[in-house]
């Protein structure tokens, strides 16, 4: 929330901000780069989950946070949300809403990772897919990476200039 507030404040013209940062935040090219970067990352991220939904379902189970009846539905649905939103960002179709969805997923993922880090729950071991045990995802690294993606998503969400190469632009946001 602090990050969100900081970015919102940064977008307000009456608040002094380093002119280089202001220029970067207002740059259409920077917005395009971030939007394409996030889009491609999410298209790539969806690929393996779509190809192997059963393995993805087991990974969701491994988080030990969700009731059983949700796991398969999430494994079917979430990879396609990533794919559609990733494509929407690359093509410039409703970029603000696509970013909102992506950041919603990132936020949920950050919470899930944090909960498991705090309670020391190990998850995503190799026994779920390749017959190996003892493999644990580096949750700390994942957390940092997702917070960076989340911040990039905020830049796309709050960007209020002219977006480049958009098929269907989102309207302007009152900040």
């Amino acid at each position: 929330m602090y990050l969100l507030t900081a970015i919102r404040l940064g977008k307000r013209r009456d608040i002094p901000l380093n002119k280089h940062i202001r220029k970067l935040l207002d740059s259409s090219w920077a917005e395009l780069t971030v939007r394409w970067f996030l889009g491609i990352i999410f298209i790539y991220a969806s690929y393996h989950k779509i190809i192997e939904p059963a393995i993805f379902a087991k990974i969701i189970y491994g988080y030990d946070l969700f009731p059983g009846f949700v796991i398969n539905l999430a494994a079917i649905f979430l990879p396609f949300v990533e794919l559609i939103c990733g494509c929407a960002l690359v093509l410039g179709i409703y970029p603000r809403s696509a970013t909102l969805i992506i950041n919603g997923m990132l936020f949920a993922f950050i919470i899930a990772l944090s909960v498991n880090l705090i309670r020391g729950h190990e998850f995503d071991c190799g026994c779920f897919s390749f017959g190996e045990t003892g493999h644990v995802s580096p949750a700390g690294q994942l957390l940092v990476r997702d917070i960076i993606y989340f911040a990039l998503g905020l830049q796309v969400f709050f960007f209020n200039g002219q977006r480049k190469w958009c098929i269907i632009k989102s309207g302007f946001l009152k900040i």
Partner: protein
Amino acid sequence: MTGRVGHPPYIGHSQVSEVRLERSQMNRFTDIMSYKNMTKELVILLGIAIVIGFTANYFSPKGIALFGEWDTSKGVITAKSKEDVVVRELEITDVPVAKKMYDTGKYLFLDARSYEVYEEGRIKGAVSVPVGGFYDVADTFIEKYPLSTGIITYCSGRECDDSHELAQYLFDEGYTEIHVFIDGYPAWKAEGYPIE
């Protein structure tokens, strides 16, 4: 000669930017994104994802059921995919039952985990057949153990379906008497049964 007479006034680079800026500012007032618009966009994006997702899953050869089996008290967990390897009828759900079968000496115990994990500890007398490398050793295995051999596969517990997958490979090769000890090495070790 007055060639330039009648031409529109020349618009410089900075003036073009100003024109664009004005248009941008004009849009700010005419095209404000409302919550209603955003909701509409979210519904469209999520709706497309739902429709494509469930359709693709239905037709995909690797598609999964809408609801899986994630309760370990009922056996090995499974997403119930179209390629599902979990067969409940093969499962030995009690550790003492597995021990009784072990004591008869009629069954060959196969460890479906990786060789490194097998080396760290295994059921005494178990043979390592990592599920990922089954077809590398299949010929040698069939030569050594006749198709009539009674086999019990295991891996690391009820969250692991490698033992079931190995059982299916063995069925494909022609073995007929196969069981899956679903609690695997951790439960065997916890009971204090023979390990090495």
